[in-house]
């Protein structure tokens, strides 16, 4: 086992660990800043989508720093990195296919089920709703 411990001795010093910690902390604070920034923006507005996109990019950057430095994958042999990284590419298809499927399902249901569309797009009185659909009332899932 000696080779595994000595081969990485030059990587992952405490200085690098704290550097990565500060990067993660700053990225998290920036994410939260965007969260507060878009709090009052209308749902489905373009600027909100853009900020959400930025937050996703920051999230992936955090994931990269954790995997590369904390989990120490970056200095490993490239062949090994690829055995972990290449299967992850499946997620690209996975995310695209399922989110598009969800979107298509919503569009189809809105088009062919007007009752569903009316019920789910008409705002209701909040106090009344909490009273009606609260803990002791019918399950909200039964609304549909």
């Amino acid at each position, binding site marked *: 086992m000696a080779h595994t411990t000595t081969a990485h001795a030059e990587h992952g*010093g405490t200085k690098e660990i704290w550097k990565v910690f500060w990067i993660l902390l700053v990225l998290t604070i920036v994410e939260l800043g965007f969260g507060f920034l878009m709090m009052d923006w209308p749902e489905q507005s373009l600027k909100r989508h853009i900020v959400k996109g930025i937050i996703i990019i920051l999230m992936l950057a955090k994931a990269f720093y*954790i995997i590369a430095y904390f989990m120490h994958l970056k200095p490993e042999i*490239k062949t090994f990195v690829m055995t972990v990284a290449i299967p992850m590419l499946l997620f690209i298809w996975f995310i695209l296919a399922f989110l598009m499927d969800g979107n298509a399902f*919503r569009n189809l249901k809105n088009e062919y089920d007007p009752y569903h569309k009316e019920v789910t*797009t008409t705002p*209701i009185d909040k106090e009344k709703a909490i009273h009606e659909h609260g803990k002791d009332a019918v399950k909200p899932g039964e609304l549909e």
Partner: protein
Amino acid sequence: MAQTIPAEQKWWSGGKSPFNLEYGKVMIWYFLMSDSFTFGALLISYGTIRFASNGWPDPNEVFQSFPGLGDGLPLLFVSLMTFILIMSSVTMVLAVHAGKNMDRKNVIKYLIWTIIGGLAFLSCQALEWTHLYHEGAWWGINPFLNADGTPANANFTNFFFTITGFHGFHVFSGVVLNIIMLIMTINGVFDRRGHYLMIEKGGLYWHFVDLVWVFVFTMFYLL
């Protein structure tokens, strides 16, 4: 990206581990890879259902309480939870680092800090779940309206409790593993073995738990 390898070195002709990694470490990586598909499936199904819905509750209205400070404070409590988990990830990587230097005293110190961080995170989650339960939210019951005031169904709470619960279970397992490793370190098991590879493997699991939280946190509380 990879460490520099002499061009003529034959990694695959036998007599040498071609990945230059110990067996257990290779296997924990493949376990974590499969676990990421489990979490991926959960999070992507959450995304699918959210895309298939005309409305969805606003996280800033649902998660807006801080214990002791009251309501109207969105994002604050989850920021604290995120900070605790990042901090515990740092102490874990410091424990791994100390292990590489065969520094038993520091391994014990940082493992204890990591365990404290894990328990603090679990306590925060317990507080949050209890609070939401008293607001009337649970599996199958959603008292919150959608962001646009339309009636919501229980998809939101079902996904929230299932995914954060599954993640919390991972944190709990990680704390148990860390406690076992702490006892082994105190008993000098790794010194007798001559290496602290077990701490490295436990560390990989712990960082993975932190990694999953990065995704869960972003998708449930920010987006």
